[in-house]
């Protein structure tokens, strides 16, 4: 590469870095100026504002950071090996510019943004890299992430471990296969940390820590069901989970619970389904608020599904604990990339039988094929039941905001009728 090209790229990176900071700080400003902002929520906003580079997170948690794509790898296993798992995501529009030329035109904007941010070397800006990468093979984009990193010229090449995710959940063979993968992950973590063995008591303790986090998070979910937690704050809290130690985060959520003591407005309750939403791209949530819709339930993997749910275990042998984790993270996962996924659709439909919401807003990021395909099935099922459904396809740009808002307002009117 010539010096001219280097200079040009350097200038572009600097320009994008400035805009990246602008985009983030602008959203932080919006969050802090909301009338429902309270000091108890500052912790979560500050975590998101503080950046996602491994050095900062490692300094905060006192643990080396492992990058994690998707949520099927048991977090407890990282914890017991003294590691901090960090789910890779990208929510900035501007970072996409760095990765865009090398990648397909229609591609998941979240990953495009994530690759852009990595290319921007944000991840290593303070000299510390991720200790390793762990990738469960979920959607096509995630499966190809390592190749895409190379194509984008991302220099960071830590040990890369793939977990082969069986896309059938109900087969015993698939469950056994996933358990094998969890054992392989344990071997990999053992290799990178140099810890030959883990004590089953320590693993059980780590499982209890995450169980406690889930318990407190469940309380927050219950408050959300009553319409007291605006989805924006819920998203900020859940998005910030990977930025700090699980116990500290849990304590902060516990402190924040009393903030949500009353329902502000009587708006139509909806279920938000579909592609994940990540800070700072909270466009869809702002639009929903503006349109007068209240999200009481969602199934986004960046929100209510950041935890797999309660991992119930009564077999305290190491195998028993790993089996419990493997099953919960595989069978209990409601990711649309699974093939036998009728229970995911049921999960969205069942609350409607109990009148817990009035309609479903399905958010699809352009290029996010599993959700896009799944929306067809869901739409048919919901319409059969006489429920209102709207699918909104968007990306990280703001050009379509007005169109989306108009559609959402019209949708709200249909809910009122």
């Amino acid at each position, binding site marked *: 590469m010539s010096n001219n090209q280097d200079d040009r790229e350097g200038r572009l990176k600097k320009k994008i870095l400035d805009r990246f900071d602008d985009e983030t700080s602008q959203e932080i400003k919006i969050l802090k100026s909301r009338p429902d902002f309270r000091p108890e929520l500052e912790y979560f906003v500050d975590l998101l504002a503080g950046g996602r580079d491994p050095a900062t997170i490692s300094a905060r948690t006192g643990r080396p950071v492992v990058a994690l794509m998707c949520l099927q790898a048991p977090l407890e296993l990282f914890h017991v090996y003294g590691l901090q798992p960090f789910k890779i995501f990208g929510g900035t529009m501007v970072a996409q510019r760095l990765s865009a030329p090398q990648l397909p035109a229609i591609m998941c904007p979240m990953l495009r943004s994530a690759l852009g941010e990595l290319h921007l070397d944000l991840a290593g800006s303070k000299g510390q890299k991720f200790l390793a990468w762990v990738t469960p093979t979920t959607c096509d984009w995630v499966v190809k992430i390592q190749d895409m990193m190379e194509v984008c010229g991302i220099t960071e090449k830590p040990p890369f471990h793939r977990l082969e995710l069986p896309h059938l959940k109900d087969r015993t063979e698939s469950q056994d296969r996933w358990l094998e993968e969890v054992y392989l992950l344990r071997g990999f973590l053992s290799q990178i940390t140099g810890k030959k063995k883990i004590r089953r008591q320590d693993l059980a303790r780590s499982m209890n820590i995450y169980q406690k986090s889930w318990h407190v998070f*469940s*309380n927050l979910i219950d408050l959300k069901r009553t319409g007291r937690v605006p989805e924006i704050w819920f998203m900020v809290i859940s998005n910030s989970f990977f930025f700090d130690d699980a116990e500290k985060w849990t304590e902060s959520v516990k402190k924040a619970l009393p903030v949500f003591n009353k329902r502000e407005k009587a708006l139509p309750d909806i279920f938000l389904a579909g592609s994940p939403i990540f800070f700072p791209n909270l466009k869809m949530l702002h639009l929903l608020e503006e349109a007068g819709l209240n999200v009481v339930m969602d199934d986004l993997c960046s929100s209510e599904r950041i935890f*797999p*749910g309660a991992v*119930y275990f009564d077999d305290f*042998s190491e*195998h028993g604990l790993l089996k419990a984790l493997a*099953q919960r993270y595989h069978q209990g996962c409601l990711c649309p990339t699974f093939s036998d996924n009728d229970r995911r659709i049921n*999960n969205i439909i069942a609350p409607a039988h109990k009148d817990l919401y009035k309609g479903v807003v399905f958010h699809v990021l352009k290029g996010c094929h599993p959700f896009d395909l799944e929306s067809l099935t869901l739409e048919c099922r919901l319409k059969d039941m006489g429920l209102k459904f709207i699918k909104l396809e968007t990306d990280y740009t703001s050009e379509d905001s007005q169109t989306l808002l108009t559609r959402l307002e019209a949708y709200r009117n249909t809910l009122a009728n």
Partner: protein
Amino acid sequence: MTLAKLRYITQHIGFLVFTYGGFLQINLGQSIPCLSCPFVYSCTGFCYLMMLQRALGVLFLPLNRAFSGADPWSNIADNFLSLLFGLGIFSVLVIVLGKSWCGWLCPFGLVQDWITRLRRKLGIRESEILVRQKEKLSVIKYILLGYLFIMPVLAGSGVLPVDFILAFCNICPAKALMPLFAGDVQYIAMDFSTRVALGFSLALLIVTAAMLIGMFFKDRFFCLFCPMLALMNFYKRLYLLKLAKEPMACHGCGNCRRTCSLDNETVYRERVKSNVYDADCMGCFKCVEGCAADKSLLVKLGPFKVFSSSRRYAARI
């Protein structure tokens, strides 16, 4: 108090009452639908399997009498009524509590749970081989139920020696183990009185040793073979205490299947029906406790909801 703790306490109360209640002159009859072993001299009530074998044996005595020239019809009405009476009480008890007799009250079940606890304390995993063979092994309980019906009939009618009237009791590991809790060791000794008695005492020791090994490596191992569970299955449509599922609310996380001591899959796999009482279910409701979906699994007494699964309850520590 959690359901698990309540169950554990109830199991211990059941154990104390059924094993030592006799010291307090408590008599709960002979139709108890759990392994309250009659060979424990301080027991409070008899396991119905013993009553059933004895009643069948006595009922077929007329055949024996006819062969030996005595009046075959004396006491036949009494014997028949006695069988019906015992069956009636057993039926009522099973209909009211269903299989929860096994999961909540059976003293031999608790002994198995103690062994499981010991294994878990030692950090030894459950045997996958035994778990995978579960479907095949659980058929044996029906074979034993047939054995339990046929042998007393043959013994009563004189085809087999009289020791065969209690053919199942004579090989039931509860007979060897439960009297130990009352300080009685006679049933783990060899009985040389007759050839049949010797054969039975040897068989009992072998079965008990095999069961102890099985119980150590597999939760509730003996329950896979227990003919009481097979007998109770005939009442499954009548149980008042029911295990119900709301399939639409299920996320399929597998907690129910993993926590089931008998590795039943019905609760996990069912996607349509509400009744998920499996043939091998012992009514412990651990699946309801472990279920992480709100109101997906329910315990009902008649039309009333007693307990339902919840996301937060499952996440308790």
